[in-house]
């Protein structure tokens, strides 16, 4: 059902967005290699761009300023980049309180300093009232590649036998923002996992070198989308162990009530790592040595199964599909 217009479902990070880009954007722009978190531009440099739209601007565990820096840093880190510089575009809606602006800018500055990233430029536009959600941020990030470009982790490098890891519990960011926006009291204690991951990613690459096949941050669309993207890009299957996936009880309970699947809910401080067969234990040790990876786990393996299909072995020993989310997450009725 094509209604001739873009809908919010196209922005959900799922299959509809992938179709939209593949049909209408990438071929026109002549972009062949898409879907990666950042792109090599030669001379040992990587670039990425990202836009941040979140309501509310400040939410439990973080805010849009921090999210913009960490999000950019993480996209670079997922391609094996060491972030160096970024630009920041602020698109401000008329009427935004100066206190909120101050808070967000202070947060941007603190996060950039924490990550060792220099903010080298930016741009500011103001929209008339009613034309924006207070504040949007767009960034561009630049990083030095830690390995030669052909050896960098990439979504297409997963091979059967590889181990799949994640650095902690899934779904916290999405539920924290939803709970803050909709004032869902029952999920009030969930905090966003918003965090920079470049140090953990570098430690992993230092330990395993080219044995790090893919790194991917499961943001919009959650772990389900991230793993489906890797399986599709690599032309491999994947099998997960449900019991091995780190969970947070409050996130599970909120998802249960809202009819959401925690595997499809956004994260902002999580990293999926696909590493060469036999390297899982070493990779896990690296993750757990980082404060953002204490609850890290090996959650599954890459298989020769149907290309692009992610399966999950439940705690009952049965098997089911982990599907690519299609679009916007919409809570159910009862």
């Amino acid at each position, binding site marked *: 059902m094509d209604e001739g217009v873009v809908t919010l479902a196209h922005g959900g990070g799922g299959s*509809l967005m992938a179709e939209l880009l593949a049909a209408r954007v990438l071929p026109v722009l002549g972009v062949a290699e898409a879907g990666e978190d950042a792109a090599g531009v030669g001379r040992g440099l990587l670039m990425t761009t990202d836009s941040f739209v979140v309501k509310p601007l400040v939410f439990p565990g973080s805010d849009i300023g921090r999210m913009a820096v960490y999000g950019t840093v993480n996209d670079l880190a997922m391609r094996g980049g060491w972030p160096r510089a970024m630009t920041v575009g602020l698109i401000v809606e008329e009427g935004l309180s100066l206190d909120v602006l101050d808070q967000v800018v202070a947060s941007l500055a603190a996060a950039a300093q924490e990550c060792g990233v220099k903010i080298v430029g930016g741009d500011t536009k103001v929209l008339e009232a009613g034309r924006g959600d207070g504040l949007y941020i767009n960034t561009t990030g630049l990083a030095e590649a830690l390995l030669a470009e052909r050896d960098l982790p990439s979504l297409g490098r997963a091979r059967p036998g590889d181990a799949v890891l994640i650095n902690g519990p899934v779904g916290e960011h999405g539920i924290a923002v939803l709970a803050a926006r909709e004032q869902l009291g029952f999920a009030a204690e969930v905090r966003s996992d918003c965090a920079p991951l470049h140090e953990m990613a570098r430690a992993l690459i230092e330990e395993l070198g080219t044995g790090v096949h893919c790194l991917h941050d499961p943001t919009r669309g959650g772990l389900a989308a991230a793993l489906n993207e890797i399986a599709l890009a690599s032309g491999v299957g994947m099998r997960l162990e449900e019991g091995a996936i780190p969970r947070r009880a409050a996130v599970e309970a909120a998802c249960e009530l809202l009819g959401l699947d925690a595997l499809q809910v956004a994260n902002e401080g999580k990293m999926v790592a696909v590493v060469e067969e036999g390297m899982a234990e070493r990779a896990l040790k690296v993750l757990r040595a980082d404060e953002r990876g204490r609850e890290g786990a090996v959650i599954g393996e890459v298989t020769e199964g149907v290309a692009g299909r992610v399966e999950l072995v439940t705690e009952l020993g049965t098997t089911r599909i982990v599907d690519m989310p299609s679009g916007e997450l919409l809570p159910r009725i009862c």
Partner: protein
Amino acid sequence: MEVCGTHSHAVGRHGLRQLLPDSVELVSGPGCPVCVTTAGQVELALELARRGAMVATFGDMMRVPGPSGSLAGARAAGGDVRVVYSPQQALELAAREPGREVVFVAVGFETTAPAVAAVAKQAPAAGPSGFSLLGLHKLVPPALEALVADEEVALDGLLCPGHVSVVIGSEAYRPLAERWRMPCVVAGFEPEDILLGVAMLLAQIADERAEVENAYPRAVRPEGNPRALALMEEVFEPTEAEWRGLGSLPDSGLKLRGAYAALDARERFGLAVVAAPEPPGCRCGDVLRGRLRPAECGLFGGACTPARPVGPCMVSSEGACAAAYKYERTQVVRG
């Protein structure tokens, strides 16, 4: 038959079919509020959006296709359509924008009806507001009675819905067991709950018993929740309602009673009943009656997917087709 869509999804999500012997088949039923809402009823909500009202709805309804598109499409085209998490939030939207017509699309079963009744009770007291309700509520027992009476639908037992039963109580199914000799077991939503419910149904069938049993006693009492029932009784009265798949059933819907009738969006906007055909090729009606498995529909997984749903059963997170597509399509899609 597992009546409730949340059961269907739990069955898929936990791969429970793989644990059952081949002689036991679980068939999805009509327990998905969005799915049993007809195309004509979706059109009423779209009409309200076109007339400039703010339409507040549960998220599940957003992508259900009606004859002239979906509420998500109406929002993209500039209509004021809001996703809310409770009827209370819709009332708050109305309070924030006095003078604005705000309509809550009240879709759901006995599970959500008490919360809507509570909001209806607050609304008149909140002064002259533009708040109204598009009442599309439906009642589960009349639908089950229609199903067991239908000779084309051959069921051996009913796995009755846990959430609905919290409100109406397990005794509500007694006529089904006694008059229609249909074994009924109320079950919860954990995999163990569902398997226990199935085991209790199988025991009844083996013993040739037809009783109402409760496999979910930690949440469901025989008499249900008397306060919730009283609230519903005060605000609503039963009325004939149109179901997708089941047609028009007497006393299977709810309409606002007496003093609360002023909140009825149909009256307020003079909405006429819209007779709208179901989408061509869509067999949601047969799926909802348990006559057709999702994968047996010609559109399943091809023309109809969660990204581009043709029928509501593929849209809703409680829909049988969505569950089959999301969790089981290796097993169910051939080729």
